[in-house]
């Protein structure tokens, strides 16, 4: 029997506010332990929460970008459970009236046979809640420590419908979602810093069966690649179990990245009864439609719209366009290059193939890049005009990235200007032909490769600066 996976993702994203969701403490990352705390986010007896309006606005903006139905009435609930990172023993969250209801996300994904297709993934809800603190176990002999700096930072939990059908789709969904969150400027989406976290719900069912199989929740996924790998592992594990006639146990499993496996954390029986009830310390209120529409007006051009525009305006391929728009900063960089007069297709190629790999190699982002869009456009122009060869250009780009100097300066400094002077090249070609009768004979006998020796000598003669295109043309003429 063939099995198909059914996957849903729960993404927690920290909203980029200066202060926490219910108090005025700073949300800055990496501060000294418990330095960004107050009676409210420490849950001291008697303290009360006050909603951060900016967090609410950012949350709604995400909802609008995901085409969610934004709630008319806003309410918070308490989710009760005991854990040392949760100082009040309840998390203020939203239970039955999330700020954002049903929505959807269109993603570009590759099928198993490599075809690009568009898929619509349903968004169940996206609600506001407060983050918990962080437990520290390492290097502590007796017990654990708690850092509440993270406690109370605003989170938006975005829950997808079980619409994803492969680990690749899950990966592409996350990529598309992250792009939207970055475009709307609501979050850093930095998984390493924990500002974006993802849990995956995975089940399998026989192909053709409508009813879902028993689902398993996977936690501790710290990168999109890990999400993809853990889902892949889980699909294989569950499929194998089904094939062996074993029942899947509803449980929460953790991904072990060292062993590359998932393992059981707790079963359904051990699951918490969160005893949700309306948070009495925050009064429900109405969200005016005007305010929501005002927020809609502030939404920027979203990744898909931008990709479509790139295809139309600049004639990029679908693939190039979607790759370029995934990172907002890269898309902006690309557009700046074009404003600086660069050829769009060349700019797209140079950014994707050369610039990004240079940056990646040094673990830099486009924001750290010393090559300004103006400078890259300059380099591209030199290549386009034939002033330097493509090969030299790569060398020049490396130098630009390292020093921040402009292309023409480096080209002059290193003497990389191509010789396109036909008179000069002609002389060198004639000299080379005269010096290589054997090669000439071989070429005339049909051996194309023999030409290499002659070209090599021409290049040597011109100090490697001869424009290869011109050399070839002249050589072919002479040997005709």
């Amino acid at each position, binding site marked *: 029997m063939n099995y198909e996976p059914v996957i849903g993702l729960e993404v927690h994203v920290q909203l980029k506010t200066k202060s926490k969701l219910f108090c005025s403490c700073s949300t800055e990352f990496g501060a000294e332990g418990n330095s960004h705390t107050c009676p409210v986010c420490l849950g001291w*007896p008697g303290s009360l929460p006050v909603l951060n309006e900016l967090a609410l606005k950012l949350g709604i903006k995400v909802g609008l970008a995901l085409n969610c139905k934004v709630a008319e009435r806003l309410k918070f609930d308490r989710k009760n459970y005991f854990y040392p990172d949760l100082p009040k023993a309840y998390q203020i969250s939203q239970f039955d009236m999330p700020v954002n209801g049903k929505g959807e996300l269109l993603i570009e994904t590759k099928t198993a046979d490599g075809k690009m297709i568009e898929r619509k993934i349903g968004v169940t809800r996206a609600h506001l809640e407060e983050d918990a603190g962080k437990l520290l176990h390492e290097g502590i002999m007796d017990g654990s420590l708690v850092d509440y700096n993270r406690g109370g930072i605003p989170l938006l939990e975005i829950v997808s419908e079980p619409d994803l059908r492969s680990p690749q789709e899950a990966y592409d969904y996350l990529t598309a979602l992250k792009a939207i969150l970055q475009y709307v400027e609501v979050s850093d989406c930095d998984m390493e810093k924990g500002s974006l976290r993802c849990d995956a719900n995975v089940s399998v069912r026989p192909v053709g069966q409508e009813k879902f199989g028993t689902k398993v929740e996977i936690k501790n996924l710290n990168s999109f690649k890990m999400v993809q790998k853990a889902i892949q592992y889980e699909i294989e594990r569950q499929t194998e179990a089904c094939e062996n006639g074993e029942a899947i146990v509803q449980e929460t499993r953790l991904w072990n990245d060292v062993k590359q496996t998932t393992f059981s954390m707790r079963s359904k029986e051990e699951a918490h009864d969160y005893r*949700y009830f309306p948070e009495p310390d925050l009064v429900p209120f109405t969200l005016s439609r005007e305010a929501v529409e005002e927020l809609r007006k502030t939404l920027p051009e979203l990744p898909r719209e931008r990709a479509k525009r790139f295809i139309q305006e600049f004639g990029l391929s679908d693939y190039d366009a979607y790759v370029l728009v995934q990172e907002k900063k890269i898309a902006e960089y690309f557009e700046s290059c074009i404003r600086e007069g660069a050829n769009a297709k060349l700019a797209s190629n140079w950014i994707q193939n050369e610039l990004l790999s240079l940056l990646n190699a040094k673990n830099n982002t486009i924001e750290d890049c010393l090559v300004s869009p103006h400078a890259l456009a300059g380099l591209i122009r030199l290549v386009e005009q034939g002033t330097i060869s493509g090969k030299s250009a790569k060398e020049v780009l490396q130098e630009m990235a390292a020093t921040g100097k402009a292309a023409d300066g480096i080209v002059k400094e290193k003497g990389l200007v191509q010789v396109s002077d036909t008179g000069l090249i002609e002389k060198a070609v004639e000299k080379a032909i005269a010096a290589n009768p054997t090669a000439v004979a071989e070429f005339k006998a049909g051996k194309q490769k023999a030409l290499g020796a002659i070209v090599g000598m021409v290049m040597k003669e011109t100090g490697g600066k001869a424009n290869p295109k011109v050399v070839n043309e002249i050589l072919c003429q002479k040997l005709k």
Partner: protein
Amino acid sequence: MTDFCALTLREAIEVAKKDGAQPVLDAFAKRAAELNPKLNAFLRFDDRIPPTRCDMGTLPLAGVPISIKDNLCIDGREVTCASKILAKHVPPYDATVITKLKTAGATLFGQCNMDEFAFGSSCETSAFGPCKNPWDLSRVPGGSSGGSAASVAADMTLAALGSDTGGSIRQPAALCGVVGVKPTYGRVSRYGLIAFGSSFDQIGPITKTVEDSAILLNILCGHDSKDSTSSPEKVPDFTQALKRDVKGLRIGLPKEYFIAGIDPEVEKSVRAAAEIYKKLGAEIKTISLPHTEHSVAVYYIVAVAEASSNLGRFDGVEYGLRVPSKDLREMYFETRDQGFGQEAKRRILLGTFVLSAGYYEAYYLKGQKVRTLIRQDFEKAFKEVDVILSPTSPTPAFKIGEKAADPIAMYLSDIFTIPANLAGIPAMSIPCGFTSGGLPIGMQLMARPFDESTMLRAAYAFEQEVGVYKKKPAL
């Protein structure tokens, strides 16, 4: 020589403005030291005037001593909610009402005994021993703000703050023969009040006279950006409201509040009060609040649900008691087992149960629906009358231990006070007479949301006519 302790708040402020607060404070320090071993009204008291406040005399409260229920956070002072789990707990901040009192020039004096976490109607559930009724030391002062009411009644303090979730200001005020006001929900900021039932809790004054309550309400009320449930409603000068008489005021007597089981002397006294109002020109009407009988049940579902969640934070991790144990789970169990008293445990269990999966709809949700019905009862009634008059408590002060073993009997002593908390309306208790055995009887006045003025006006007119408050317990 003036007996400073016998002064009302207003009188004491006048004295302090003229001669400074020190003589007044000295007198109270002496009396509190003398009487507290007998009454156990204060868990601790401290009458040191902060040295920086040399301008005391120009401030509204002029440095006079006010006492505070021990569930209100005071920066740098121990605050325990009369619970072992918070013994030695020192809050790092002031409750908003404490800031307001300090700004108004109060000297924070005693910290008053109470039922543990305000769970009780007798002050017997205090982890630090019961407080006693100044009128009869074998009887309870009521609760949960028993220490606040007893200390005011015994002239150990000029006035005190209490908190009222289901009658915790009014019932002890009635049982101790003093004035106690529960303002409209949202009138006074709850920031810094250690929560019991967050959608019910209100802070209010317990004083010797209605005028004293009005003076304190002027200081305590008002919107607070730190409490999202506090109301932006304008705060009038409550002392001005006292100047009007009650001619033409429509006063309702709810028939559901005069039921079997009510002490005949209490009923007689409250009915006599209605006659006095008539004499003063008010109009007395019998009204109906048909859902009253469900009040106690609804309250013990919704309030304990909130309480069970509010008390989750006392887990031994950050503050308060921690019983060292072999692992986290056992630490939670041991800390909460040893830290909480019987009644607290009972309410945590009840609250946890009514919120549990499978029971939530049947209890919590239904409770909330009935709560709406009770609120509507009042809305309807206030179309016919301006103020509602009833007994505060069905009985006068009962014996210590009398109801301790019977939680239901104890819960029923709040039967007349709970509805106002369910509806969020203002309510107060004032002394209206004494039993033949010499125990104080209190009557309750309730009014429309944010109409404390009319309520205070009615209370003041009666008080001035009858003068019950002038009688003091023999101590």
